[in-house]
């Protein structure tokens, strides 16, 4: 039996997780980063690529978070953070922003999740024990972006229960859309055959990661240690 993670074996840092997803972004991709951890993806900068940041409130091509004192009171991203204008930025209204999303112009959306299933379903908007849900633009992005990437902790921090599941237990955000998941234990690809472990955190074995995972992991021959940089 593998060493239990609670023993203190190091997991990946949130910034490393988001860097790894950002390494997958291609030149000229339109990227939509969800509230919370995904916004860390914007800290990874590859000078050979132009990444176009889209935010659901209608801004295409915004820049980094505004330093204190440089905030423009009329310019915020999807998290309500003040960002800097960037040359070439364009503004549209909310209906046009979601026309942009539904029209398939977003190359990748990165979101957090409570659960991801091996069939590509994921859940991030509603906990049945609470009334209502917080959906924001996540369902539109999940249904319509070209790719959905997920960044989340591998297990529920409250009770250690797994979050990579055979089937989602919570109400889903969209069916079958997740392509890539990064957790603090590794990088996972959703394939037609199921969840493929592509990279594992340093110090962890695929078997140890399987132990923390409800879904059956496919371990390919070329599985490798987590890449922190290209």
């Amino acid at each position, binding site marked *: 039996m593998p060493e239990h993670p609670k023993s203190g074996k190091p997991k990946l840092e949130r910034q490393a997780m988001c860097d790894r997803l950002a390494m997958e972004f291609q030149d000229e991709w339109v990227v939509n980063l969800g509230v919370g951890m995904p916004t860390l993806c914007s800290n990874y900068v590859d000078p050979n690529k132009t990444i176009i940041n889209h935010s659901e*409130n209608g801004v295409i091509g915004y820049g980094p978070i505004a330093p204190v004192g440089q905030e423009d009171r*009329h310019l*915020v991203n999807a998290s309500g953070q003040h960002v800097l204008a960037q040359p070439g930025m364009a*503004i549209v209204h909310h*209906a046009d922003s979601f026309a942009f999303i539904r029209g398939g112009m977003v190359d990748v959306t990165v979101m957090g999740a409570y659960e991801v299933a091996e069939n590509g379903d994921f859940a991030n908007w509603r906990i049945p024990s609470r009334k*209502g*849900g*917080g959906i924001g633009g996540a369902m539109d992005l999940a249904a319509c972006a070209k790719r959905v990437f997920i960044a989340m902790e591998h297990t529920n921090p409250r009770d250690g229960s797994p979050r990579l599941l055979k089937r989602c237990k919570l109400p889903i955000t969209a069916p*079958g859309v997740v392509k890539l998941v990064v957790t603090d234990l590794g990088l996972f690809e959703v394939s037609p055959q199921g969840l493929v472990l592509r990279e594992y955190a340093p110090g962890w074995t695929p078997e140890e990661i399987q132990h923390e995972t409800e879904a059956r992991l496919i371990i390919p021959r070329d599985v490798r240690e987590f890449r922190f940089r290209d």
Partner: protein
Amino acid sequence: MRNKVYQTFDEAVADIPDGVTIMFPGFGGVGVPRNLIAALHRQGAKGLTGISNNAGVLDAKAPDVGTLIEAGRVKKMYCAFTSPTHPSRVTAFVRMFNNNEIEAETVPQGTMAERIRAAGAGIGAFYTPTSVGTELAEGKEHRVINGRTYVLEYPLHADYAFIRAWKADTYGNLQFRLTQRNFNPIMAMAAKTTIVEVENDVVAPGELEPDAIHVPGVYVQRIVRIPPAPEGIWE
């Protein structure tokens, strides 16, 4: 031509009766018509239906739709957030919703924007891929078009839209600055009566470039220039 420029927010909202539907734009605290909301709060209209991306924020220092909700003036909300993003963020709306003191319909943000746009654009209903396969699509009509599944959604109409603009002329032509735009233009186009608070002096027709107008003046009925703080609300 009828004068559209009102001197005070109180005058501009004075005749709003109980029971009407009002659209409230704003996203991330930007483009929120706070002065008009404060005036309606003073005016006292109740039994309102609100259409808004969220239902108020925690610890709001400046008035927003949550101010009207907390005061018990709102009967139903259409919004994209009906539970808090974190369990500790319990707004007045969340507390009242949990106690069944207010009704709410959770609408994906893009579907909400398109339903508002459809109301202004005279579209009877439309098919969208958003929410297919989820709880929010249950009971809705589905249709497969070119191999993709869509759900049928209907327009969201309103009696009033409260709008926050950057510039306006006396005809009601409006301009917004950066992400202040958000829901403002489509709400202005969807409501029967559109009331605007504007951050700059209302100028004469012709001073705004025809190519750079975001809402044609025909959609606008009332305009109030926001006075300097503390009389006007600027945060």
